[in-house]
């Protein structure tokens, strides 16, 4: 049985990543769309609801922005599944699957290029955040660790999104399926309001929700607080989710007919 060498597999993934990045550069609308949604949420929560929300120690901008950064990663990761389902619908995947490339390369390439795109979105969001009053006050190391965590979060969710895209097979379904899990994950968490005012059942969910853990860790690393517990919790979630969704997405891709 013929196999693809590791060097070829890496090259395949990079060629695919390059393809996606090229497409993003030529259709910057996609990049804008994935930034507009978190910006709108940021403005709504900062200026519409923010005045009524009481958060522990400090400004609501400092409470809100870490959540918006993580959310930017989630919105960015939704594009992974939509892009994959577009390729499926257009017949591009058939062409790719008939080539002697590593079978996982299209998925690895796309999640990597989405990581780069998310990094760009993140920088933009930090700029917008600064304008609305976000003032990180921790060390540069802690700040960079927070950004790495946001990108890791986005990368993990790209694989979930990829799995959904492969199951949905068409872009419209992928988009609506994508949003179904985004809402509970985002709102039943500490992202916008502290969890202690929520009913017990939702609070229980919110406290183990990876969104809560990651947002809390990013908060601690950027504007102060206890980082270790939510950080370790986040990393445990990432490992578990990758262990489930990478093989799931790859096997779904292999099983396409």
């Amino acid at each position, binding site marked *: 049985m*013929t196999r693809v060498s590791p060097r070829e597999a890496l*090259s395949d993934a990079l060629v695919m990543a390059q*393809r996606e990045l090229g497409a993003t550069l*030529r259709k910057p609308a996609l990049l804008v769309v994935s930034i507009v949604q978190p910006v709108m949420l940021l403005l709504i929560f900062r200026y519409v609801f923010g005045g009524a929300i009481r958060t522990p120690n400090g400004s609501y901008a400092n409470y809100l922005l870490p959540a918006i950064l993580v959310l930017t990663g989630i919105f960015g990761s939704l594009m992974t599944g939509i892009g994959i389902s577009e390729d499926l619908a257009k017949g591009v995947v*058939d062409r790719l699957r008939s*080539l*002697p490339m590593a079978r996982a390369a299209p998925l690895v390439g796309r999640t990597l290029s989405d990581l780069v795109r998310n990094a760009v979105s993140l920088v933009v969001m930090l700029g917008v955040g600064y304008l609305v009053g976000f003032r990180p006050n921790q060390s540069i190391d802690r700040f960079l660790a927070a950004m790495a965590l946001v990108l890791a979060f986005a990368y993990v969710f790209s694989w979930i999104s990829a799995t959904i895209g492969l199951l949905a097979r068409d872009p419209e379904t992928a988009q609506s399926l994508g949003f179904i899990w985004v809402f509970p994950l985002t709102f039943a968490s500490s992202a916008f309001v502290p969890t202690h005012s929520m009913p017990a059942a939702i609070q229980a969910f919110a406290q183990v929700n990876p969104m809560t853990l990651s947002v809390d860790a990013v908060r601690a690393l950027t504007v102060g607080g206890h980082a270790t517990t939510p950080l370790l919790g986040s990393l445990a979630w990432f490992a578990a989710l990758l262990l489930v969704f990478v093989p799931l997405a790859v096997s779904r891709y292999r099983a396409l*007919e």
Partner: protein
Amino acid sequence: MTSVPAIQVEGLRKSFGKVVALDGLDLVGAEGRVLALLGPNGAGKTTLVRALATLLRPDAGRAVVLGHDVVADPLGVRREIGLAGQFAAVDEVMTGRENLIMVGRLYHLGRVESQRRAGEVLERFGLSDAADRRAGTYSGGMRRRLDLAATLVGRPRLIFLDEPTTGLDPRSRAQLWEMVEQLRDEGTSILLTTQYMDEADQLAQQIAVIDGGRIVAEGTASTLKERVGRSRLLVRLAERDRTEEARAALGALDGDGPPEILAPGELSLAMSADDLPARAVRALDRINAGIVGIEVRTPTLEEVFFALTGRRTDGERRTEEAA
């Protein structure tokens, strides 16, 4: 090397739920030839191509492409093939050249060789001028050409073309035929599917008629035509009232069976020998029958298909609708 067939399929089966797409299909295609899979929509053409191109797993049976089993060694198959599916799978935001370079790199040709090879096939398919435009700006015919070009980048030994001209205008269709003919004349093995008789007739050295997930007939265009019936000699006379005399004159020749009167002034006689037309002309001349038309008609592939499957092809329906 030449002893390995390009395609060897034995008892291949594939179902999608309750729909049987391939029903124990057997087929052998020689290397260096064009094999056309001819059949109506839903006959199993695309399913067979997808199974051979390792895009789907057969439920049972065996398919070997250039010596590689599609299930046991799919990568071995993919290194030897190029596939142009029913939809032109080109990336619209990339230029034609970038599309081809990407494919080259995924065949692991390396950066420099991929670029060189992309330039070469663009030239060959008359796309050099459009090479650095986005593929999204290409016409339908240009996209198909780019798609075909993409299948050649990796210098595959076998090319699959799934309905390569469906949806193309007549001019683009003729251009694409020309390109396939060129490849054929260079000795590339090609498996093409089509629902058009004229396409199979024009391009293929071997035709397999597929219906209900099986091959129902196989051979060259002419052997398939012979299976349905002999060629017939058709004669048209200037004067209708000479029909009976003409029948007697033709009856004296050793045709394959007695002459038939198709209409007043029109007769036919089954061909028995190559010199039958010449002898018929001489016999009719002797009685001054006044021949205004004479032709030898072989059955069309349309008629062959109808005889084999009891159904008309979409191609024929199309021309009937046009008429």
